[in-house]
């Protein structure tokens, strides 16, 4: 159990070098625990072999909820609770007045999809306001990229391999203490 609490931090200064390194490390069958980058690196999730996001599916569901809420809301407000004369056509029928509600339906679809998606993303990523930052090196918020790998039995070999991929700094970190 002593070994498993140890990780290796490899720092890169370029996203292209990082991408190549990720492919190399994965090809050598080492386990990448996490990568900290100052900005989203295009294609990194695929290179790391992460499962595709399901956020899009939730966004669709949220959009549908927004559409339903808007329809129900406009029906209650404009037709049922206080019937309105819309555009000089007082039919008091939802379907006949529907064109007037389309902008609201659209806005609430977008509103629900966007806000709930952001909240879902935060929950899924386990981040919330005032949470202490998890990134191990402050330089990853500026211009450095950090790859965290589980340390194996032969740490020296791993060090060499990481340096060969272009890492500018390689350190062994014991997470246990």
């Amino acid at each position, binding site marked *: 159990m002593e070994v498993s609490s140890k990780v290796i931090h490899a720092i890169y200064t370029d996203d292209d070098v990082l991408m190549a390194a990720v492919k190399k490390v994965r090809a050598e069958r080492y386990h990448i625990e996490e990568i900290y980058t100052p900005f989203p690196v295009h*294609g990194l999730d695929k290179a790391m072999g992460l499962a595709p996001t399901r956020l*899009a599916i939730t966004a*669709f569901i949220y959009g549908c909820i927004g559409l339903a809420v808007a329809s129900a809301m406009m029906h209650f407000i404009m037709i049922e609770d206080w019937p309105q004369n*819309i*555009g*000089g*056509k007082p039919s008091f029928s939802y379907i006949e007045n529907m*064109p*007037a509600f*389309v*902008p609201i339906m659209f806005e609430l679809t977008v509103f629900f999809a966007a806000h709930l998606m952001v909240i879902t993303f935060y929950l899924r990523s386990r981040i919330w306001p005032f949470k202490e930052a998890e990134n191990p090196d402050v330089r990853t918020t500026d211009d450095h990229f950090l790859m965290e790998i589980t340390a194996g039995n032969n740490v020296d070999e791993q060090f060499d391999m990481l340096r060969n991929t272009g890492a500018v700094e390689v350190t062994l970190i014991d997470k246990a203490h």
Partner: protein
Amino acid sequence: MYTISNRLKTFSIILIVLGVLGVAYGFMTSHKSLDEVKTMLAHGDGHETAADTHVVAGAENHAETSTEGASHEAKAEADHGSHDDEHAAHVQEQLAKRPWSAMYVAAFFFMMIALGVLAFYAINVAAQSGWSPLLNRVMEGITAYLLPGAIIVVAIAVGSHYIGHHNEIFIWMNPEVVAEDKLIQNKSGYLNITWFVVRAIIFIAGWAGYRHFARKFSIAQDTAEPGDKKNFIKSFRIAAAFLVFFIYTESIMSWDWIMSVDPHWFSTLFGWYVLAGMLVSGVTVIAMVTVFLKSLGHLPLVNDSHIHDLAKYMFGFSVLWTYLWFSQFMLIWYANIPEEVTYFITRIEDYNLPFFGMLVLNFVFPLLLLMNSDFKRIPWFVMMCGVLILVGHYIDIFVMIMPATAGDQWFIGIPEIGSILLFGGLFLLVVFSSLAKAPLTVKNNPFIKESEHFHY
């Protein structure tokens, strides 16, 4: 290098021949004497005689309008004889206009595809987009139809006035109508045949001129020395200039060639609305031709991501089209001003199924089918959605033109389908012959490497 196969050539020629037969049938059956029209109306089966037995679409609507026609007729009879004659004469004109309008709708539809592709091509060249150069030859090939297509559109528009009697698509071309119409008289400084033709010549010359030089520079760049970007820069410059010319002429063209069929009515965003339909149809055809050529083993470097991008544009432009359609509809519906709202009343009453059906085809289907990212990378799926979008946009043009000409005497029957086959066959023949004239992959384009490695 692609060569047009004999099969495709024969297929297009068969389409053209069938189309000509259909159109000829349409013309032969469309001219009815006043008595024939009266008997037809008295039987209340205006559609039965006017339309063919080939039921394609609008079966429900068909029954509805027939009974409406009958009740209308009953009322007319209760009135007096002269009104009856007037009504019959009006229906007679509508019947005579139907084959002309059917040809016009189909001709415009295919011209619009080529024009939309030309605009899309120019946008990509002017934006120096990195993903698209592999598709440049496909786009150039499709735009080859623009010159013949646009000339045909204008020829039909003007021909419908000079050939035959009282069957012009544009009623402002008819001096008898103008003489009794104050509103058209006020517009006749703009809406007159000479000016119409002059404007059409300017549009067509500008578009075809850009197309000619864009193609020329694109081919010249193929054989340029490595590092020589002269032709690329030239094509960039003319693309930018063309886009400025295009956005004005496209808008004016949409007033001239479509909106003026209802000369009393106008909409200020009509140009945008037509543009959106044009772009989505154009991008759809680019995707379909690309998938087709790729299935034959051409365009080996075009990958999933290119198809994905085209499908994204199909999705996006479909939504843009809907946005503009709705913007136009809602304002007019809401304000409910009589002279504006008649446009939609005619369409909702007489064209209910195509009018709302096209919303499903052009909005609901693309939205739901093309929403999923993975589906946009499946060629046959994109092809199927493309068919739906093209049918939807044909109906869109149909519903723009027909109510003003054929009125409630419409149907999608032999004249309409014949016209689609005729111009569809011509379109395929022109486009694929043009595709066969140059290598399908551009060379020495500074962005070709980026396009080859394009990866989403």
